[in-house]
């Protein structure tokens, strides 16, 4: 097949699915000089704020019209992939660090180096932070903001139980001791800690604290079955001691913030990305706090600052310069960021971040305080995960289900995880 | 095979009464026909006997057993439906054996009875066909066969011949009559065709609006209709019913004026009151005579020459009362001419103002 015919064939394959999306872009005022599409995954708060910022952008740039589309992350990636196949991706898209390399290396998104200094102004960014958007030396995505996996706790409940949160330098042993303290005070139907043995970032940190990692630079597994078994066993002990909820409650914990055990008011302590503090607080009448992951006794720091969310411009954009202008506006405009606040993490533009610090709300204050502590406890960002990593994450959730429903022992689950992960990586 | 008694049987659908107190006795082996105009309640009555229709009031007694509360499934009767109601998904053989299988009759016995019924009804060749592949007449025979194999206490037929063409109807009528003779079974047969009733019945029950008008042997009904309705219903062409006035009565006869100056003397006992009556004369009971002997002179409107007989349609002077006359053989009569007729005295029926027949003087009537 020639390049062209292959390309058109490729387009045709998913034409039916992509067609709907293409037509979706034809709304809005018809006589704009330039018309952009901007897609992201999010939540109601994010969607509302982002749309407001886009309105602001349109009034500041007459002649550019931006059509927006916000999806749940579960729906976002299938749709983006479908549009990629159909050659009608949005001009600007929100990117996950996990997929940055895949999209960049397949030429679906374009290097932004040419726009930096022209449309995009990165002077107030930490160069090291910007570098996390580089693939093979070129800048393919600009990080929206930073976040880090964290411990989220219910301050109201802890006060009610009359227990005090230990220092953020706590170890896993101290963490579980504290959990026992909580559990002793907790009423029936309440548990100390959410069972997050299926949460990959928690496993990731647990590994990194021992100098291991999920994936090596070469895209291979960075841990053994025994490592996984150790992690699983820690949770098994907690479960057997009644410190975490029973399997059926844990089984319900999924993507949506409302399904988290802390939002369902089952536990005093949960784990989440730091930028979700605001969202989780919105689900909860009690006051929430945020702190560091427990440390490994004699280990090294496991947490790291993530640029989980990036902005990219796609290869099929017809107005890349306008798109770059939108990217710049989203990242560096003070007014825009006063609307967006820290919903996607702490902004990478230091001037913008400083401005937000002048009148932080409660959540932002907590986040920033948290960040100040994290900064001193981080290790460098891990290499990008290989393709197939997303599926391994799903597999982990599944295996963990078998574990909590007593179909597997921690050792068996560890073996299975490594085996299945290797199969998946080989197939990817 | 059994006898049947209905005592004051009534049926109402909600507020509507459709059967008003029917009393009837059917003896073992009798062939009873229910006749009456459409909607008079024949089917309803039959279905009450079958057990398919609840009995609002009165008793149904079969072989001395009170069966009002016995379901159709347990009455041991068989019914042949107007629409045949053959099971479309079963072969003819299965249709016949179904009831026996339900009753857990031994296989051998089933086969014997099916073969027997098939032989009697000449349906042996179609035993393995489905009903959809049979003609109307063949289906009718299967429906009858289905009743026969059950060896029921009583056979019930609801207008079984009405879907057949004229020729087949006559043939099947004969077959059913023969069957009755051969089986000697009690049969109750519903029809609104009075020819069927006359030819097949041992006993006819004439129904009108849910009321029994008369019960009797066919000729009894023909010769002695109890009322105007029966008189008009039985016999074809129907009886001439002439309105008249009694103008004189003597011992054994009365004189009735049916038109200006047309008087007829009928052999009926003396009447206490002189008044309006209806004179009934069957078309076949007129005789053509010379003008001098004539009791009536008919002005002829129309003649139908059928070969073996001649039907004359005419009217009395004054043109008021139409009369049909049936003459044997062939007659050369012209429209508009006058026909001189007499009536055999014994063949006259007189009905009072309420429609009831007045008693005849037996002695003279017997001359017929």
């Amino acid at each position, binding site marked *: 097949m020639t390049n062209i015919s292959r390309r058109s064939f490729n387009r045709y394959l998913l034409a039916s699915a992509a067609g709907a999306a293409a037509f979706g872009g034809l709304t809005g005022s018809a006589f704009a000089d330039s018309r952009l599409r901007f897609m992201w995954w999010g939540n109601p708060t994010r969607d509302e704020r982002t749309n407001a910022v886009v309105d602001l952008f349109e009034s500041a740039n007459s002649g550019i019209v931006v059509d927006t589309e916000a999806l749940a992350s579960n729906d976002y990636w299938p749709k983006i992939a479908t549009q990629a196949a159909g050659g009608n991706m949005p001009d600007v898209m929100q990117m996950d660090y996990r997929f940055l390399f895949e999209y960049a290396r397949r030429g679906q998104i374009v290097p932004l180096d040419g726009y930096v200094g022209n449309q995009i102004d990165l002077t107030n960014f930490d160069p090291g932070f910007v570098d996390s958007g580089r693939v093979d030396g070129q800048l393919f995505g600009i990080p929206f903001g930073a976040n880090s996996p964290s411990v989220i706790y219910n301050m109201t409940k802890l006060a009610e139980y009359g227990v005090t949160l230990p220092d953020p330098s706590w170890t896993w042993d101290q963490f579980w001791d504290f959990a026992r303290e909580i559990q002793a005070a907790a009423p029936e139907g309440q548990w100390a800690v959410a069972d997050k043995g299926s949460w990959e970032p928690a496993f990731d940190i647990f590994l990194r604290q021992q100098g291991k990692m999920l994936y090596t630079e070469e895209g291979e597994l960075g841990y053994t079955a025994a490592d996984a078994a150790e992690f699983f066993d820690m949770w098994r002990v907690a479960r057997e001691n009644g410190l975490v909820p029973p399997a059926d409650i844990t089984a319900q914990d999924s993507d949506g913030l409302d399904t988290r055990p802390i939002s369902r008011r089952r536990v005093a302590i949960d784990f989440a990305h730091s930028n979700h503090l605001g969202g989780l607080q919105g689900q909860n009448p009690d006051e929430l706090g945020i702190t560091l992951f427990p440390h490994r006794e004699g280990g090294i720091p496991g947490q790291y600052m993530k640029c989980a969310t990036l902005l990219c411009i796609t290869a099929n954009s017809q107005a890349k310069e306008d798109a770059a202008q939108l990217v710049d506006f989203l990242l560096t405009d003070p007014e825009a960021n006063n609307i967006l606040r820290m919903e996607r993490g702490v902004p990478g533009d230091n001037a913008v971040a400083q401005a937000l610090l002048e009148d932080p709300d409660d959540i932002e204050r907590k986040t920033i305080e948290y960040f100040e502590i994290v900064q001193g406890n981080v290790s460098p960002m891990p290499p990008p995960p290989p393709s197939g990593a997303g599926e391994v994450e799903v597999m982990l959730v599944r295996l963990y289900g078998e574990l909590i429903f007593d179909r597997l022992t921690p050792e068996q689950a560890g073996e299975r995880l490594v085996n299945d992960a290797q199969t998946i990586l080989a197939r990817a | 095979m059994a006898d049947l008694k209905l005592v004051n049987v009534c049926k109402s659908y909600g507020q509507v009464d459709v059967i008003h107190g029917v009393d009837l006795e059917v003896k073992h082996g009798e062939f009873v026909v229910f006749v009456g105009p459409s909607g008079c309640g024949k089917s309803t009555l039959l279905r009450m006997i079958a057990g398919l229709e609840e009995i609002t009031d009165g008793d149904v007694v079969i072989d001395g057993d009170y069966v009002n509360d016995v379901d159709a*499934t347990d009455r041991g009767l068989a019914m042949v439906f107007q629409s045949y109601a053959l*099971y479309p998904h079963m072969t003819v053989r299965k249709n016949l054996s179904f009831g026996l299988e339900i009753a857990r009759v031994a296989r051998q016995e089933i086969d014997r009875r099916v073969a027997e019924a098939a032989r009697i009804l000449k349906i042996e060749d179609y035993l393995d066909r489905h009903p959809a592949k049979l003609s109307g007449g063949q289906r009718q025979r299967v429906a009858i066969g289905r009743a026969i194999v059950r060896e029921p206490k009583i056979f019930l037929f609801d207008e079984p011949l009405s879907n057949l063409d004229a020729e087949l109807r006559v043939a099947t009528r004969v077959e059913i009559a023969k069957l009755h003779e051969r089986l000697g079974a009690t049969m109750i047969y519903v029809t609104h065709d009075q020819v069927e009733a006359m030819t097949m019945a041992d006993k006819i029950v004439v129904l009108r609006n849910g009321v029994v008008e008369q019960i009797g042997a066919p000729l009894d009904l023909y010769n002695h209709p109890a009322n105007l309705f029966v008189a008009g219903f039985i016999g074809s062409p129907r009886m001439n019913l002439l309105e008249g006035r009694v103008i004189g009565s003597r011992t054994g006869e009365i004189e009735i004026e049916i038109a200006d100056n047309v008087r007829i003397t009928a052999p009926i006992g003396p009447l206490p009151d002189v008044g309006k009556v209806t004179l009934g004369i069957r078309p076949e009971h007129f005789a053509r005579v010379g003008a001098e002997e004539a009791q009536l002179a008919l002005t002829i409107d129309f003649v139908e020459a059928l070969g073996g007989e001649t039907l004359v349609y005419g009217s009395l002077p004054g043109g008021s009362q139409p009369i049909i006359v049936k003459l044997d053989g062939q007659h050369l009569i012209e429209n508009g001419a006058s026909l001189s007729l007499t009536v055999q005295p014994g063949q006259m029926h007189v009905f009072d103002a309420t429609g009831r027949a007045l008693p005849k003087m037996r002695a003279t009537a017997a001359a017929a």
Partner: protein
Amino acid sequence: MATTTIPRSRRDAIAKRWQRGRSGYMFLIPWLIGFFALTLGPALASLYLAFTKYDVLTPPVFTGLDNFGYMFFQDYRFRQALQVTFTYVLWSVPLKLGLALLIAIALDKGTRGVDLYRAIFYLPSLIGGSVAIAVLWRQLFDRDGLTDQLLQLLGWPPGTSLLNNPDHALKTLIVLSVWQFGAPMVIFLAGLRQIPQHLHEAARMDGAKTMQRFSRITLPLLAPVIFFNLIMQTIDAFKAFTQAFVVSAGTGGPIDSTLFYTLYLYQEGFAFFRMGYASALAWFLLIIIAAFTALTFLSAKYWVHYDDGR
């Protein structure tokens, strides 16, 4: 317009026929376009893809029978999906049809308010497959939900969450599907109405009791309708997706206990971007459904009778 001087030829005749049918074909065009562009085209494309590795972002690579080899010999989630789907089909279809028939018979007997009841009983089918109802069910079957409380009354330990328990989640989905008996019920009702009353009366005269009439008259005469419902419902059940997707948030969980075949197919294709493998799965599902349908058709000879004696 053809000129009349040209002698009539075969081509002329064809043109004539075309002209005669032209308006008919014109009316067919929207359907034809839809069929070729939206059904046949993608179907053939997916047949090709079934023999490739295709991650959507890069062009498909032909891999021969690799997908099928992996499917049959290595993929335990595929086996799980088959098991879940077959369990679902083999339970939900007979239960649903049985309930539909039962209700249809009850409605057929009843006289007053039949239309109202029919509408009420049909309602679950209209809304039952919707996302909203699946979400509602999720609440209903949750810990502390209505079923939990009811089961506690029956002596179960508190804290039963049927949908979050791998032993009960599929059963719950089966119940959810049985609850949507409306469509087959309406068809059954129409079928029952078609059976002439006098056949029941004839059977009564033949001494057949209620159950005997049901098994020997009603059921056989309803066989064509049962057959139709069976095929439709079986195909539907094989294609079941929405409830499991919503109830398990797309995971097929807990621990793959509700991993319907279509859900697995969806995950492989749209979550893990293995369109080639997903296509192979889709074609295998097609073969399964075709085989089931064919088996049903073959068996029909033994139990489906049509009125005309075929």
